[in-house]
């Protein structure tokens, strides 16, 4: 059932837009049929994406540039521009080409932006432009094309630099991967060698015991054997447990990033590369669970012990003790409570809050309360 559905839509589409699919059997230009020519191939030119067979291409464009043989197409094509389409659907082929082109021009990375939001805005802008190029009508396409060209003209340097950076990052990554693979190989070899050595040591135990007996060392035969075996064991353990020299440590360091750039026109939120990176600074600092809140008391000093008859039982009697409860924690909390908020003057601090927009939060709360009451049982 479903297949039927799909084929029917496919035929409808192909009849509506004949040039959107690469033909399979008949060349639309010379109407030659595949039946007579088994290795017929169809080519397209990214100027107009009109498919035609190789014969047509060499016949029409062999002697130099000529107009596209399709009726109503006025593009002038050259033989050099023809290639085999990768996708059967030529609209997809065209979209991929357009995206590749746009991507080559708008090639900034998230690191170039101040925040993720800015980067996403930039991506959205680029996508809008791409969409216009791919799916827009004549005017949209022309507009987008102009924008793209203008941007390319204006930011030629930056684009080039980004491209280079991308290439460098690529090659760096490749280098690193190669170095890692090499290190792993070395490690494996080393391990093999050491295993062999350990096995050889083990194999020579018997011979050594015999030698020692011959030399007439002190002690019984059993003792000698035990001693030699212990020695061997220690040596084998030493070989097996030795540390490998770390080959990962000497990878090349990343090259310093380029110097500052001029500010870009339409794209906002780009990082000023001359400025110090505060974000990075923040992440380099040690993690603070309380986000900078200082827990050291200023109005009192927490003693080790306070006199409190109510707490005596909890401290001394076993049947009152509970895991996880500490009388000292209680004391710390009580002391904190006694002094916390002593210097908070609500009458002053919330004064401007009432008028300011901020506590419109409170006023809004009241409003929300009213609204909620509507919602709940409405």
């Amino acid at each position, binding site marked *: *059932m*479903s297949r039927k*559905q799909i084929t029917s839509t496919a035929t409808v589409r192909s009849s509506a837009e004949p040039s959107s699919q690469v033909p399979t059997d008949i060349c639309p230009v010379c109407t030659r049929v595949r039946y007579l020519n088994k290795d017929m191939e169809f080519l397209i030119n990214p100027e107009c994406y009109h498919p035609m067979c190789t014969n047509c291409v060499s016949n029409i464009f062999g002697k130099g540039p000529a107009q596209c043989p399709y009726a109503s197409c006025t593009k002038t094509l050259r033989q050099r521009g023809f290639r085999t389409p990768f996708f059967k659907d030529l609209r997809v082929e065209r979209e991929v080409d357009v995206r590749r082109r746009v991507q080559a021009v708008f090639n900034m990375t998230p690191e170039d932006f101040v925040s993720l939001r800015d980067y996403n805005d930039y991506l959205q802008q680029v996508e809008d432009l791409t969409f216009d190029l791919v799916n827009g009508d004549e005017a949209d396409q022309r507009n987008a094309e102009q924008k793209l060209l203008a941007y390319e003209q204006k930011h030629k340097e930056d684009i080039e630099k980004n491209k280079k950076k991308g290439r460098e990052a690529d090659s760096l990554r490749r280098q690193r991967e190669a170095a890692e693979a090499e290190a792993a190989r070395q490690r494996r070899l080393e391990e093999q060698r050491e295993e062999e050595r350990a096995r050889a040591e083990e194999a020579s135990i018997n011979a050594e015991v015999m030698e020692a007996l011959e030399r007439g060392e002190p002690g019984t035969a059993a003792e000698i054997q035990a001693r030699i075996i212990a020695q061997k064991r220690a040596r084998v353990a030493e070989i097996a447990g030795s540390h490998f020299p770390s080959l990962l440590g000497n990878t090349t360091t990343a090259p310093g990033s380029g110097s500052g750039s001029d500010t870009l026109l339409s794209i906002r939120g780009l990082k000023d590369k001359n400025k110090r990176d505060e974000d990075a600074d923040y992440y380099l600092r040690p993690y603070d669970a309380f986000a900078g*809140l*200082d*827990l*050291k*008391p*200023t*109005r*009192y000093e927490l*003693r080790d012990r*306070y*006199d*409190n008859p*109510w707490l005596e039982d909890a401290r001394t009697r076993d049947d009152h003790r509970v895991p996880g409860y500490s009388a000292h924690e209680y*004391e710390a*909390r*009580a*002391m*904190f*409570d*006694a*002094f*916390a*908020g*002593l*210097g*908070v*003057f*609500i*009458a002053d601090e*919330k*004064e401007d*809050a*009432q008028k300011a927009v901020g506590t419109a939060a*409170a*006023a809004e*709360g*009241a409003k*929300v*309360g*009213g609204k*909620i*009451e*509507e919602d*709940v*049982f409405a």
Partner: protein
Amino acid sequence: MATEDARYRQSSQYRLWSFTPSHLATLREKTNTLARTHISNRLRASDPPVDPLPNFLTPEEEYMILNHFTLELLRAAPYCQLPTDIQATAAIFLRRFYLTNSVMTYPPQELIKTCIFFGCKAEGYFIRVQKIADIFPNTTGEMILAAEYVLCQGIRFAFDVRHPFRALEGTVMELRRLGNFDDDRINRAHKRTRDILKFSPLVTDAYFHYTPSQIMYAALAIADEELVQRMLQEAFAGQNEEAKAKVWSVIRTCKEMLEKEPPEKMTSYWTDPESNKAIKALRRKLAKCRDPDRVDLVALQKARREEAAQKPKPKIASDADEKVFGNGTGEGRESKRRKVAPEAVDPFGPPL
């Protein structure tokens, strides 16, 4: 900047539930007018329309009713054998709730029980609803639970209430350590302050205007002012006098507020004929201007539940299938058509 204050400023009590007196008054007025317009609209729309409209409560009268029911709550809570701070939490929940909701909208005698039950929950003291329902006459667990979600919304999901009780213990420990006063005096002040803290701040707006430690020192100042001075001297040692004087002035205003509602009022209030008469009149007035939609919260809750249950769930799966496979199974389509048919009325009306 003292670190203790910075830590207190992080609490929801400071962020959401601290107001200046004038702000609090405007909030109450606003709540009152909102409820007034809502209820009068409702009464006018009802069939037959209520005419003339009843006299609505003023914000001051609402406040008196709220105070009355806070006292009721404090009277009822000991019967449930609840610790002090749970009682206090329940009382504060009630007061916070009626800051943005009017007593004319939600019946306070119902909310009291919900506040007690929910206060237990918020303080991690888990108790059966039935147990509380058994204590109050003519109450079922369902009635208690009906207003629970409304209460949570009303208190803006700020379940953490900072109380001055533990602060008092800290202060007493510190006073004992300082050793300038004999134990009897400290113990006497401790007991008196505890009694005050259990009552006075809960029936005034102290929790909205002052921090727990300020309330605690104010109560302690009522009991024994010298102890407070000694503590402040300790806390502000090495700082300028100005800061200390400012704190002291705040504590004094708080003290004045607390002194208006001494703990003795808890017993005298119920026997005082004057207050009884006043509240009786107010309750009669309240009964006339109540929001008729919200008198029976249980029925409302039930209706709402049913409505939610009957709401047809969107048929995502079958729709998606049809989109993928083109013409889906016949019956799915058939039912869809049937569903659409009665609604397929021309939005521009029938032909002329």
